[in-house]
């Protein structure tokens, strides 16, 4: 069961609800055993939640760094297990840790991961077509999808870690402001303000790059 479903969906049927309860109870038992020194039981938690953590992490960091950051999440979870009070499901706690680890990753690697070059001709071509087209209907072929992913990576790399994270959660992944606030550990107002600024920054970045590219071409 995903984070959103766990937060929002009411227990539609008893069987499913019982399943969640059993899982939470299993988690508590596992955590208790790990805290008493049975470290191997932590492997059960990894097996249970690795897919969930990987899914969150892959939305925020480059594909070749996902495994490394996801590992960091579980190491942090183990190190901070004593702080887990059981007031929220373990899955939610892990979600927060995952987002936090991605944030720390970008804080540490922003300087090395940001591309110094601008967009390529193909990518600016994609931007031109996106600006001219009336719908995304024309963006279905593989080359366009690859270009859009590259443009996305380039644009996100220009943003600060805070803006990058909040924009990804709210604008790209469709989380509500309240969910993003819970995941980031920020206030709702803070998320709203940063999301607005991030979108403005993204638009400015595109506009500047687009103008620079066309200016270079004409001169």
């Amino acid at each position: 069961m995903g984070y959103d479903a766990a937060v929002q969906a009411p227990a539609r049927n008893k069987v499913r609800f019982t399943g969640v309860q059993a899982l939470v109870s299993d988690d508590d038992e596992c955590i208790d055993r790990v805290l008493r020194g049975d470290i191997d039981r932590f492997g059960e938690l990894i097996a249970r939640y690795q897919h969930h953590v990987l899914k969150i992490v892959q939305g925020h960091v480059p594909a070749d760094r996902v495994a490394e950051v996801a590992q960091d999440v579980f190491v942090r979870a183990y190190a901070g297990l004593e702080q887990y009070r059981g007031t929220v499901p373990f899955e939610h706690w892990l979600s927060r840790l995952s987002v936090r680890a991605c944030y720390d990753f970008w804080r540490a690697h922003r300087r090395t991961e940001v591309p110094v070059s601008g967009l390529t001709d193909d990518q600016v071509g994609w931007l031109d077509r996106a600006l001219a087209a009336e719908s995304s209907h024309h963006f279905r072929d593989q080359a366009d999808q690859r270009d859009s992913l590259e443009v996305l990576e380039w644009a996100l790399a220009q943003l600060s870690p805070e803006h990058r994270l909040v924009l990804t959660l709210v604008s790209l992944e469709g989380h509500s402001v309240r969910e993003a606030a819970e995941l980031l550990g920020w206030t709702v107002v803070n998320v709203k303000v940063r999301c607005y600024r991030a979108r403005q920054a993204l638009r400015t970045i595109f506009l500047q790059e687009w103008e620079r590219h066309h200016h270079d071409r004409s001169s």
Partner: protein
Amino acid sequence: MTVHRKDPRERIEALLAQAHRTRGEVAAGEDWAQEVMRTIRREAAEHPVPSLFVGAEPLVWRAAACAALVALVFAGSVAVYTKQHAVPVAAVWLEEFDAGSPFPER
């Protein structure tokens, strides 16, 4: 999914959101999980959890709560008792004070 937006900037954002959803899933195998466990065991060896106190912490809190409750009940009963027998209690205290005087009267 086709996105129809009049504002070109919004259209670009929508296209980028579509692109974000097409990111391929990264699968981690058994090796990865074992590597994580190895790292955690190493971490545990370097910073062992004081397991002796893990179970003791809730007990300490429960004992503290019980002690606070007993203290409250005691204070309440003393307050009620002294209100009912204010004069006799004061007299007893005074008597004790007089009796404990180190300077005998001449």
